[in-house]
Structure formats: structure tokens, C-alpha cells
């Protein structure tokens, strides 16, 4: 755990955690710890998520009925809650992804106007 590594991590934008959770669950139901691992792993450890903050987000998504929860046993026979994308959640994900692409594109265009693209 070098300090250098930590400095390169980026704090999540407000609300993006929800999107990441939905995207992760698109691959199939998962329990909390697995979701956190998956986000960290897929972002090559760039995104710094305080794992705890996952839980309020999960509650939020359940309340909106974008995900559902069911009891199950995990790979090593431990009791765990599995979170699952609902049909509404699936639709929401498409919607949010499109929105995100638009936003990211717009920001990118502002930060790097055409013609300077090769500078870096």
C-alpha cells in the first residue's frame, strides 16, 4: 500500500456509484463484498470506494426498486444477501449509461477541444 498508489485514486462523482453498481449487477446477482471487489478490480484500482458507502447506495437502489435482494449462500457456504437487477433497474441502467456517455463526451470536448487532441 504505497502512498503513491493512493494518490492516483480518484474519488467517485456524486451518483456514479449507483451507476457502477447497476452495471456490475448486469452480469448477474452478487453480494455486497463482491460488488465492491468488482468495481475496484474493473477500474484497475483507480476508483477509490470506501466500501462502506456501498451500503447506503444499495439501500437507495432497493428503495427505488431498481434492484432486489434475496437470501442465498455464497461460494464458501456462507449466508449472504444477493443483490439482483430488476427489469426497471435494467432500463434505468441503459438510460443512465446514455446520460453518462453524453456527459463524459461533453466534458471531454470542453477539456480537449478538437485539434489539440494529439498534444498529450
Amino acid at each position, binding site marked *: 500500500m504505497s502512498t503513491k498508489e493512493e494518490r492516483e485514486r480518484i474519488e467517485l462523482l456524486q451518483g456514479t456509484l449507483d451507476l457502477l453498481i447497476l452495471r456490475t449487477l448486469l452480469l448477474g446477482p452478487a453480494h*455486497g*463484498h463482491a460488488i465492491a*471487489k468488482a468495481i475496484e478490480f474493473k477500474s484497475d484500482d483507480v476508483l477509490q470506494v*470506501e466500501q*462502506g458507502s456501498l451500503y*447506503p447506495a444499495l439501500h437507495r437502489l432497493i428503495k427505488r426498486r431498481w434492484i432486489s*435482494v434475496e437470501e442465498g449462500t455464497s461460494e464458501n457456504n456462507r449466508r449472504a*444477501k444477493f443483490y439482483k437487477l430488476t427489469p426497471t433497474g435494467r432500463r434505468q441502467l441503459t438510460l443512465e449509461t446514455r446520460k453518462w456517455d453524453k456527459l463524459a463526451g461533453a466534458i471531454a470536448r470542453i477539456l480537449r477541444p478538437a485539434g489539440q487532441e494529439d498534444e498529450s
Partner: protein
Amino acid sequence: MRRRKRMLNELDEDIQEHIARETQDNLDRGMSPEEARYAAMRKFGNVMQVKEEARDVWNLLWLEQLLEDMRFGLRLLRKNPGFTLVAILTLALGIGANAAVFSVVYAVLLRPLPYKDPASLLVLHETTPKVGDVSVSFPNFIDWRAASRTFRQMAAVQAVDFNLAGVTQPENISGDAVSPNFLSMMGVRPFLGRDFDASEEKPGTAPVLLLSFSLWQSHLGGDPNAVGKTITLDGRSFTIVGVLPPNYRSLDTTDVMLPIGVWATDNSGAIKERGERGDMVVIGRLAAGAGFGQARAEMEGIAARLAIEYPGSNDQFSVKLQPIRQAFVGDMKTAILVLFGAVLFVLLIACANVANLFLVRGASRTKEIALRIAFGASRGRIIRQMLTESLILACFGGVVGVGLALGGIRGMARLIPGDMLSGATVNLNGAVLLFVAGVVALAAFIFGLAPALHSTKPDVQSELKEGGRSSGGGVAQNRLRGALAVAEISLALVLLIGAGLMMKSLYRLLEVDPGFRPERVLTMGMDLRAQQYSEDPAVLNFWQQLIDRVSALPGVQSAAVGTVIPLTDSHSRSDVTIEGMALPTPGNFPHPDVHIVSPGYITALGIPLLRGRTFTDQDNEKAPLAGMINAMVARRFFPNEDPIGKRFMFGHPSAANPPKWYTVVGVVSDTRLYGLANPARLEVYVPFRQNPRNSMALVVKSGADPASLTSAIRDAVQSIDKDQPVFAVSTMQELVSNSVATRRMTLVLLGLFSGLALVLGAIGIYGVISYSVAQRTHEIGIRMALGAPRADVFRLVVGEGLKLAGAGITIGIAAAFGLARLLSSLLYGISATDFETFLGVAVLLALVALVACYVPARRAMRVDPTVALRYE
């Protein structure tokens, strides 16, 4: 709901599970068990905060938190009974005073008048520069009504009165003679029976009337079959056609209401003279879309045309319009608003005091709060909790305050003369309670927010590290507390200056020589209306007998009758012509007040005779006409000559009005008929035997308490005529006192509120200084150990207090300079920026501040250095 419960119940488990997995992962990476668990927890973050946030997701949370906060707040308040009691009492005083004054504000200024769309109702008077607002003459009303387009409807209301046999003794009752459309225009429907019919405006229709609800109750026992029965007034029989609703309000007392036809016409059926102005107002309802300005412009135009058309009666007469609310409120408005402002100041001071208490307590809670923040409570959450606590306190204050207000309202009702409220009932009603609720919330916010914001400032977290060595506070807190004390002092100063100005002007006003001696004088009215008094000799005989019998009563020094009692609102004025004067235009004749009096009148009232003689029994119906004038008439019309022997007549000389000259026999002092604050006017006196009048007032000067004579005098009246009512019984001193009632009420309440403000302000500064001394015990100990003389320590502490007081006084004086102007119309004989008052109050406040600092300063002086140094 179920989801919520399940999710939250299992959250703990989930979190533990999560951390266990992360620990396992770490172990797999080869960490030591301890290290693995620690790293997992660090990665997870603040468990408390996560739980809190997860709960936040499921709303309804605020309610839960509120309940929790309330429980917590109540527990804290119970734990500090002293603090709680002082805070609640302070708030209760502020809130109670506000509730009491607001109940008057609501009753007089806000409560909707019981009419349909009262905003479009206007009251119209005639007005003339010579005397101000006067009654409307009926023919002018007829012309206004015909010409006006901005008014949809107009109705005349004439004040009348009657003698009624009564239940136990004869009574004199008041009534309104109104145009038949009056009630429907006002949107008032009779409680029983019917409204007047348009045909009933015409003279000669059968006499009918509506009873007031209270007269129906008291004289007919609320008889449901009263309609159709008759009632006898002045010996004439009237058919009752209806009863007015219980909430009916009018500008004066209305015991009965009848169509105006009979009153606006003389016996021949012709409408009364245009020049005759009795006691009539006109009420109009604006047409849709017409505004006040338009109506005024139109009416002034109509009046100007009438003045040209009828110069004899209308020269220099115009119209004055006012919204009906204003007519009801009268001169109370300024006083009420001033008092309302004053109680708000008191409330602010109370809030500042409680905020100070909170800050002191907050200081001892700094550690608790810092701890909670460290454990993950958000700042907003803690502020919310502290505000909940303030709100609980304010609610208790509100409840106690309402209790105080109940007493206060009763006290205030006694201070305000009933007729000044014109029928408004002052009580603790829903509107007042709603206002109190608002005040409670506002107060909680005012005194709770500053301490809450302050004690949750991020830098207080450093408190933890200080290990609690300092007893809290720090520079910022002391500055805040000082600022609150300064604010209290400046607010108190403004109130004290207001009270001081009122006191001084009331004193000046009561020092005014009214021109008569009110001590031990009793007055009462009588109106001879029975058939037997239709001839002058019978009238004169009644008054003469009355004077003779009352004079003979034990304890009576002198008794007399007169038509006008000073300081009441009954006045009689007439144009006069002085023999030999150059005749002015009709509107510019001298227009003195006319007194028709018996010989003892000026003796009974103690009006000094300046020249010549007063009337005697010889100035009777057979003698040449005699008159007296007041000093002002003498000065104005006979500046360089002896007025005795000069002559005047009433009215303007013309062929139709052959001169009846009155010879001046005496000159008397001016009297302040229209109130102590209003300058004296022209007055003439004529003997009652030469001008018989049915309605007069008895004036009795007694050797002892005049009120004790009342029943003996009533008996004397009844021994002459057992059916003759007596009304408006009052001592002259009561009349004087009533005439300054608004000012006195303002003074008493303003004095009370400023006294309260002074005490609270003194407590405030005392609290700040003694707390600062307690905080600085250590420092003071060091100073003394190093040889500082006790006097220096004393000076140090007092100096700190006086610095606050000085700032407060300076700010207060600046504010008072601006605000005292609002009092101007209530002041008499001094300016709103009276130097003496400002100086006196500033000195008083400085002295009080000095006393408030003295106690803690003494305490500081007695600090024992060895104890102080060991203390920490």
C-alpha cells in the same frame, strides 16, 4: 415499510459479513490476522456514518430523529432545572407580552369587520377648515348620492337617542337612524325578522325599528316572538320588525335601529335645512373598479359644486373620506403599533438572554458535541438536535406565556377605555394562539441558531485535543456573548427612551390648565323627551327644580346645568355676528362653541370669571338677553376695548333672521373643551332660561367624593319625574383621565415593557461579566500573585462591562433617534428627540450596567491567588 425494517435490521449483519470477507481476503494476501482486520475496517470506512446514511435513505427518518431529539432535549432540560426555569420564564415574559399586545392588534386592526367586503366601504364626513370633521347635512347627502358614480350605494347614519321605561329604572338608549338600504349595503342580515323596506325612508310611514341583540336579550328576554310587538320610546310606540345579529358592530352604540325618514325631516315632511348638521355620517360602498383616490376626487368635486350652489350653508365645506377600518380604529392605531413594536423588542431581548444562557451551557457541552462529531454525526444533524431543544424550551415558554397573556389581556382591557375599542372584543382567540405558535418557532430559531452554529463550528473539534483544560468558549464565543449583551442594552435603551418621552409628555399634558377645576365635580346627562316637556315653561321648571333640589343635598357645594361638558364629544357650535363687525363671506363667520348654562355653571366647574359678572337668576326669560364670552373671543374681537356691554347675535343677519342681540355681561377663562392637547377655541355662554333646551347635563361640585352623591341625585331626579332617565354619570376627573387614556395606556405599557427590558438587559450584562470573571479566575489569580492591586482588578472587570454598556447605549441612541419619530403623534409639548430624556435614560442605563457589573467585579476582587492558581 417492511423492506425498510428488514434492510435496516440486517444492516449490522451485512456490514460484519462484509468486513469478515475483506479480512479473509487480506489474510489470503498474507497479512497477519490483526493487520488484516484493521485494514478491512479502514477500507470499509466509518460504520456509524454508513448506518446513519443507510437510515437516511429510508425517509420518515426525520420524524424518528425528531422524536429522538425531543427525548434527548427533554432529558437535558430536566437535568438542568435552574437553566431551564430561567430560560422558560424569560421566554414566557417575552411571549406573553407579545400575545397580550397582539390580541389588541388583532381585535382592533386585523379582525375582519362583520360586513360584506369591508374593504370597499368608506365613511364620509363633511369637513371645514374652521372646525375639522363635522357631521353631514341630510340634503347634502341626498345630492351626493344622486351625483356620485364611484359609489355603488350610499347610506346615511344618524346617531339618535331615546328614553326608554327600562326594566328596573328609566334608561336612555342610543340608536342609529339609517337609510333603508343601509343593512343590505353592509351585508348584514337581521338575526330575526326583516330588514327595512325602501318605502320606509319616506316620512309619515308607521314607526318601525330593529332591536340590537343585547337589548332584545335584556329587555325582551330574547323572546322569539318579539317581531311584531311594540316598544315605547319617548312615549311613542314603535313596531319591532327585527333583531340585529349578535356580532353586529357599529361606530357608536346601537341599541335600536330605525329608518332615517322621520329624523331627516321636520314635522311638515320637508327635508331639514342644509345648514343643519346634527350627528350624521354617510357610509358608501365603492362601485366595482373604483378606487379610494377616484372616489375622493369625485366627492371633492361634488362638494365644491355644492359650496358654490349653496354658499350660505356649504361655503368652505368639503368631504373627507376614510376606509371604514380607519374610522373604527381612530387614534388607537399609532399607540397600538408602537406597543407592538415595543413587545417585539422585549421578545428580542428575551431571546438574546436565552441565547446567552445557551452559549454558557454550550461551552460545557463542547466536548460532548466534539465527541459526537468525531463519531460521525454530521454538523447539520447536531444543529437540528440543538434547535429541537430550543423549540421545546420555546414551547414551554409559549405555554407559560399564554398563561401570562390571559392575565395581561385582562389588565390591558382595563387600561383601554371601552369606547375606544368601538365594539372590538380583545380576547385570546385562535388567531392569537396561531400568532403565539409563530412567535415560539421564531424565538426558538433566534435564540437557538447562533449558539447551535457556534458550538458546532469545525474548530471546536480541537477541544478534544485540549483535553478540556479550558472551560470552553474562547475568543469567538466571548465576542458573540458580548454582542448579544450590546444588542440587549441598545434595545432596552430604545424602549426606555420611548417610555421616557411618553412619561414626560403625559406629565406636560396633565400640567396643562384645562380652564376649569375637575376636582370633586360630578356630571350626568338628562334628556327631557316625554310629551309633558313639549312646552318651554315645563322644561325650565324641571331644570330649575333639579338645580334647587340638588343644591339642597348635603355635601353639595354648587349645582348647575349646561349643554356642553368639557372633554366629552358632544359639542354645539354656531356662527355668530358681532355688532358692528364687517360682514365676512358665509364660511368665515366666527364659529364659537356655545354653552347654554344656568347661573352656577362656572362656579361649579371652577371656570374663573375674568371681567364683569356671571349670570344670575335675574337673567331669565323676561330679562334682556345676556351673554358671556371667553378670553379668546375678547382678545380676537375686542382687542383694545372693554367687551362688557358689546353685543352679538347667533347666525348671519338677514331679513329672515332679524337680529336678537345678546349683551356681553362677563368674560371668563378659556377652557380646553376638545381635550388637554387641543388648543382652546372661541366660546360664548348664554343663560338657559333665555334658551330653553331639553337635553342638558347636570354639573355638581361637592365637598367630598362626588361619586357618593350619585344615588341621592338620582332620587332627586326621580322625585321630580319618576320616568326621567339619567345617563353618562361621570366625575370630571374621570373625563380628564379618559381624555388622556390612549396616552396613559401607551405610557403604562411602554413603561412596563421597558422596565422588563431593563431588567433583562441588566441580567444579560451581569451574566456576560460574571461568566467572563469565572473564566478568567486563573488569569486574575496570576495578576494578583504578580502584585496587581485589587482596585485594578475591580476596574478591569467593571471596565469590560462598561465597554459593552457604552456600545449598547451608543447604538441605542442612534436607533432611538430614528424610531422615536414614530411616537411623535402621541407626544405633547416635547420633541421626539428631547435631549433631557435621551440623556437621562442613557445615564440610567449606564448606572444599571454599573450595578450589574459591580457584583461580579467584587467577586473578582476577592479571588484568592493561591486558590485560583491551584484551581486548574
